[in-house]
């Protein structure tokens, strides 16, 4: 079983709302980071006046603030180079901000210890813009990784992986090496891996860049289902067709700053 760090349990988003599928699984895996009393009234992801400068002097984000509530789905748009990926990387602790505060599940990410960062990442499913899939592993193996990392039993892994691959129409390719797929298929593998674990937080970076509108719809359907199951979802995209007409919040980055 996963180690518990710091004693502050990270309550699964899944059991906050009714109708969450597979609550039992979630209860076993997810830990409670936030204390009971302010879990509901504080944002799940809180970015406060964050500045990120890449060496030597490339300002990717400047004084950016963003609050995402638990269970919210939000779209992050902006031109190429605006800083969308950088913001997602900061939230998942892949990069460190030069200034400002980033809180996830009520904890300051700058102060997390190694084990706590690992625990936090286990709760985050990220679909990377460059996919980061293993070309020589099969599709199944790629998608199963986040569950294997949590030592889930094989039967459960199989079930869940098949389910998510089916939802993305990738089940017929599951035993092929991921490197032999078309780019759009690889992108779906990356999305499936981010979603397979029903994580509390999903960060999707340009998830439909290589997908046609039909498949994009499937992807959005998957995300919507997960969101209804309690997951908080942040989607960075330039594809207006996937957020036009939704009731969800859309924020726009421009040259490292949010525009109203």
């Amino acid at each position, binding site marked *: 079983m996963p180690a518990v760090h710091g004693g502050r349990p990270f309550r699964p988003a899944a059991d906050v709302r009714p109708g969450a599928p597979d609550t039992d699984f979630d209860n076993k895996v997810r830990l409670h980071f936030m204390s009971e009393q302010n879990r509901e009234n504080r944002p799940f992801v809180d970015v406060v006046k964050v500045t990120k400068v890449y060496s030597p002097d490339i300002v990717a984000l400047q004084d950016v603030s963003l609050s995402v509530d638990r269970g919210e789905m939000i779209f992050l748009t902006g031109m190429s180079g605006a800083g969308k990926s950088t913001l997602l990387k900061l939230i998942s602790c892949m990069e460190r901000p030069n200034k400002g505060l980033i809180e996830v599940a009520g904890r300051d990410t700058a102060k997390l210890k*190694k084990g706590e960062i690992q625990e936090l990442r*286990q709760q985050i499913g990220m679909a990377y813009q460059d996919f980061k899939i293993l070309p020589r*592993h099969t599709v199944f193996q790629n998608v199963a*990784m*986040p569950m294997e*990392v949590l030592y889930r*039993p094989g039967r459960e892994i199989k079930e869940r992986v098949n389910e998510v691959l089916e939802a993305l129409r990738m089940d017929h390719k599951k035993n092929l090496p991921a490197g032999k797929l078309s780019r759009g298929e690889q992108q779906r593998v990356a999305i499936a891996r981010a979603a397979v674990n029903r994580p509390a937080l999903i960060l999707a970076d340009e998830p439909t860049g290589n997908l046609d509108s039909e498949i994009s719809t499937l992807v959005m359907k998957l995300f919507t289902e997960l969101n209804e199951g309690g997951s908080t979802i942040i989607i960075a995209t330039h594809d207006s067709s996937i957020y036009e007409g939704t009731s969800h919040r859309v924020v726009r980055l421009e040259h490292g700053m949010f525009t109203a």
Partner: protein
Amino acid sequence: MSRLKYHIKQTWRNLGQSWGTQIMTLFTVSLSVLIFSFFLLIYVNILAAGDRFSDELRLVVYLDHEVVPEMQPQIRKKIMDFSEVENIVFVSRKEAFERFRKQLGKNSDVLDDLGPEIMPPSIEVSPLRDLEHLSQLKEFSDYLATLPGALKVQYGQNWVERFGHFTELVRMTVIMSGVLLVMATGFMVSYTIRLTVVAKDAELEILRLLGASSSYVQTPLLIEGLMQGIIGSTLGMALLYALYTWAAGRLSGPGFLRLFDLTFFSPLTACAIILVSIAMCTGGSLIAIRKYMRI
């Protein structure tokens, strides 16, 4: 328990995916162990040969008159004052004459009319084994020349020096080869680690991003390193033993006066070498992935 099964499954899968690298690593380990223990074995045997060589080393002090038995302890003491020695033998004129007669063999009848007084008496001194260097021997010989009545000090200068020279050359050859091989082995090992890391790079990066615990990442690699260490070093040691048997076979023969009785490592030493290699293999795999263990 179920976690260990998880890790073993993982290791097994890795093995299937990267058996090329695995075999290469195995060869590297075997070869490294072979090379290291080969030079260790040679070094050990040279030391032993040196011992046996000095066994046979004697200095002969020719005297102008025999040492009467009462005087012997005094001279013994005088010699011992300069240096501890292995053995001191006093050879009288008569004993020397007998030796000469034997040396002439059939022709010894030429000595029939002569008495032992034609031969000089002598003292034979066997230095201690640790008196290795020729310069020390020379010094000792000079000292012995100052004994009362000493005419001349002789030792197999010719052959001793020649042999000493040769031994020195061999020692240096072995040392230099050893240094070169250590460097080559070092390169080999570091290259293997680099190639392994290149191969695993993407996977370790992704595991890190998925929040895999350190034990999840390290255990399969440890098992892998352990297995490679065990198989590789045992193989290397077995190869060395085969080589040794071959060499010993070639060197045996009508071995009267054989200087080199080759010996292999004791089982204990062999085990120690294998254990150290195993430890280094597992340590190496850990070092190779340590940079992925930071967050």
